[in-house]
């Protein structure tokens, strides 16, 4: 096929961009911005083309590249598109240009370093989703830490150093234990089957006793749950979000958090099905706790960035619930919810950044009556708020509805079998929808309507650049809300494969 290498190009395009940025002379900030935008636009175009070419009816990897890398350890450079990652790759590529364009006026210090870091993050995130080899996955997973560390630490708010170090130390702790688990897992594969390989396809054949599975799942889950983040491992998120520059928040909420849920879906649960089965009640409870607790916290925040940060915790709780209920609709809903949250939370963070550029405060109490002064801005804001609440026709509805549908379906079956916990959890999860409406509408009400007080000076409404950024997001939100069939079709085979993998026991065969 002539498509060979296209995926590699998609992956390495940002690195190429960084190399080009290095060649630019000093003090060429405008050129830097445009060049970065061009690189991300090309990356998106490429991703879109690959997306249209992706064949939903073919199981397994498409556009695959596999080259042995460290042959002695069975490590290979293997990337490919499949139903698990195709939507997330698309999301990453879609948000790239928006992040870059969104920072045009906000970032004036060390512009070149800033865009180099954004490109590197883009590279690492893309690599994490595309990697089909555990070693490669781990490298990308960790690589992302450093540019993000700099992004928050250099261009962040007042308490940026505290926030960024907290972010790195939290995530690195999870990663260290995951590394131990990776080493042990590969070693077990080698001793039980004689195959030395890091390829996902080989690893999901490992048979492990239950106690080993439990330990390994704990290590993987710790790392992924910190990233998602699931209550009670979420405390780094509000700090990181609040202190990060807009671009950092958008990347964090838009894509990076999904790497946690993606990790669970691609690795955590399928690798250790028996342990997952054993601990589903606990994990599911934590997911529902995240939904409700995140929503409750969002309800009482005074900082507008924190409201969205806590709402992310709540929304990603749905994803976890969908993945754990092992119902086909729920799993597909979880994937849609990931993408939807990326669009909506990303868009909201961009909007907060835009108003912050104008008024220089994030305190909710300082705002009021924005609708009168900035009508266009407010219209966009309202749409994204409603999408976050889960209004039908928006993507937020599709995701949450499918997840809850799946959760109830699965819970009902369990209930008939005598286990009422899933049903209770599903009922509690529904209350999250109500709470979500409550905090988002409280936010919008105080912010947009109320007594006009915010603007300290006459404010300029959105410019063309800002309108186009938000316009694109809104279009995507409605597209996913109105026509979810096509993307769901692309993930269907993966969802089935996932259910099959997690649903089948893989304890070691006992010899007769």
């Amino acid at each position: 096929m002539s498509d060979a290498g296209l995926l590699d190009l998609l992956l390495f395009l940002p690195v190429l961009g960084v190399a080009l940025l290095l060649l630019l002379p000093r003090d060429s900030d405008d050129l830097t911005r445009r060049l970065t935008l061009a690189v991300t636009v090309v990356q998106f175009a490429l991703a879109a083309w690959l997306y249209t070419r992706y064949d939903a009816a073919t199981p397994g990897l498409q556009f695959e590249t596999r080259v042995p890398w460290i042959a002695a350890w069975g490590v290979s450079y293997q990337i490919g598109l499949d139903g698990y990652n195709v939507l997330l790759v698309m999301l990453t590529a879609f948000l790239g240009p928006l992040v870059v364009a969104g920072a045009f006026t906000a970032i004036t210090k060390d512009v070149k370093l800033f865009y180099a870091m954004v490109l590197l993050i883009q590279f690492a995130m893309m690599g994490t989703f595309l990697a089909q080899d555990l070693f490669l996955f781990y490298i990308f997973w960790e690589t992302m830490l450093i540019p993000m560390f700099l992004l928050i630490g250099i261009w962040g708010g007042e308490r940026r150093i505290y926030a960024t170090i907290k972010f790195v130390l939290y995530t690195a702790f999870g990663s260290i234990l995951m590394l131990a688990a990776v080493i042990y897992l590969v070693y077990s594969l080698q001793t039980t089957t004689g195959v030395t390989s890091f390829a996902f396809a080989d690893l999901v054949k490992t048979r492990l006793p239950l106690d080993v599975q439990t330990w390994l799942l704990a290590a993987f889950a710790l790392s992924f749950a910190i990233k998602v983040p699931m209550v009670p491992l979420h405390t780094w998120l509000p700090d990181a979000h609040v202190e990060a520059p807009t671009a950092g928040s958008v990347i964090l909420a838009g894509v990076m958090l999904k790497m946690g849920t993606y990790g669970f879906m691609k690795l955590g649960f399928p690798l250790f099905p028996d342990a997952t089965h054993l601990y589903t009640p606990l994990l599911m409870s934590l997911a529902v706790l995240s939904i409700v607790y995140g929503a409750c916290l969002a309800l009482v925040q005074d900082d507008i960035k924190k409201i969205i940060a806590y709402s992310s915790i709540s929304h990603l709780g749905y994803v976890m619930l969908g993945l754990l209920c092992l119902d086909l609709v729920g799993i597909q809903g979880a994937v849609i919810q990931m993408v939807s949250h990326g669009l909506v939370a990303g868009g909201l963070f961009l909007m907060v950044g835009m108003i912050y550029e104008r008024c220089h405060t994030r305190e909710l109490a300082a705002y009021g009556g924005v609708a009168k002064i900035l009508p266009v801005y407010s219209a966009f804001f309202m749409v994204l708020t409603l999408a976050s609440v889960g209004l039908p026709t928006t993507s937020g509805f599709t995701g949450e509805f499918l997840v809850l549908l799946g959760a109830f379906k699965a819970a009902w079956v369990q209930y008939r079998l005598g286990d009422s916990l899933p049903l209770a959890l599903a009922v509690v999860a529904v209350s999250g929808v109500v709470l979500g409406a409550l905090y988002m509408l409280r936010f919008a009400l105080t912010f947009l309507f109320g007594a006009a007080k915010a603007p300290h000076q006459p404010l300029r409404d959105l410019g063309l650049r800002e309108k186009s950024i938000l316009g694109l997001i809104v279009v995507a939100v409605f597209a996913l809300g109105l026509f979810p069939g096509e993307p769901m079709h692309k993930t269907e085979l993966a969802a089935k494969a996932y259910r099959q993998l997690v649903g089948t026991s893989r304890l070691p065969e006992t010899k007769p």
Partner: protein
Amino acid sequence: MIGDAVLTAMLPEHLLLLGIVLILGLEIAGRGQRASLGIALLAVAAAAVAAASLSLSGYAAAPFAGQFSVDPASLMAKAMVMALVLPVLLMSRDEFEGGEFPALLLSSLYGVCLMQSADSFLTLFLGLELMSLPVYVLVLLAYRRPQSAEAALKYLVLGGTATAMFLMGASLLYGASGSMATATFAIGLESASGLARTAVVLVLLAFFLKGAIVPFHAWAPDAYEGASVPVTAYMATIVKAGVLLAVVRLFGHAKVASPMLELLALLPLVSIVWGNLAAMRQPSLRRMIAYSSIAHAGYLFYALLGDAAGRLQAVAFYLLAYGLLNLLAFAALPPAADDGERDRLDNLKGLFHRAPFAALMIGIAMLSLAGIPPLPGFVAKFLIFRNLVAAGHTAYAVLGLVGSYLGIYFYLRVIQFMFMSPDARVAPLAPAHRLALCATLACLAAALMIAVFPGWVLTRF
């Protein structure tokens, strides 16, 4: 025939010796100065190439049977160590004018090479002392600050203790086995006799002291800080490499079992934890690197617990990655009028705005030393812990990894200072010397190479 083997097998050593003699000759003739550095560079480069090509051709010989032998692995180890010396020489241009520095450095290097081929405790002892004695003088060579004298003396006294322990251990081994061969060490390691075990422990402790393992680490921070930057770089990388490679050779194919296992696991583990914790509070880069090198010594000795087959590979790769990145940081360190002020962490604040290239290089070095992928430090750590798991010591591997987590903070702190703090002050920086720049770029290129193609290095050992 024997003459041939002596000439070929010891070619790298001979080339070093030739360099030393030439430098000393020029010094006596009173026109050393500039030429001596060039000669040293040439001699080391030629020796490294000789060792590498001998190794690649699969050469093995024992010109002095029972005392000195070479095989491809030991030749490659020599080549690696000598290649690491090149950046040290390059970055010394601003610090040392005369011929003392290169001459002493080459002598010490000769000792390191001798250790890699030692088959008897006599040769090993010779190599160990030949490696150490010039370093005591090298520390003192930066005698612009009173700390240097204190540092050198401390290092000398504690080095003497190591020598004493080593000799005691070697003589006990001789008493137990009646042989001076280093192979008795590996036998003693597995034996149950009290005498042999005591001997082995004494020799090990001597190496722990040389490699700066807690609780024998106290000399390292003072010595590293008292010495001038190239000497610190040399101690942190090449001396450590020499010691560790010699220990791996001593271990041979021995399997480490209890109670040696606990000794070999616990002290390094304490080193990892303590080195990483203490490094958080250090005021200067050199002191910080000293504590970090204590932690790294911990990982390296940890590797001895691993599978015998993969031990040399893991240690060699680790030393290469660790050495290159340490040298990168030291070579990129911007020059300053006062050597003592040069690497104060407070003075690195805002470095990115004054010297972006230097800040980026030091940043890369810090991240790699912290073991963050995709830099080579990660593969190195991965290799060690993988071998540990393969040998069945999963619990120790997890503890070591958690210990390594403690090290992330202080490396990031350097980056935080350079990139996120407001500019410290002060006098505009002198541009880095051209040779130092060469050293920086060479280290960077080599580090990237082994990060992308780790397999290439791994298959050579």
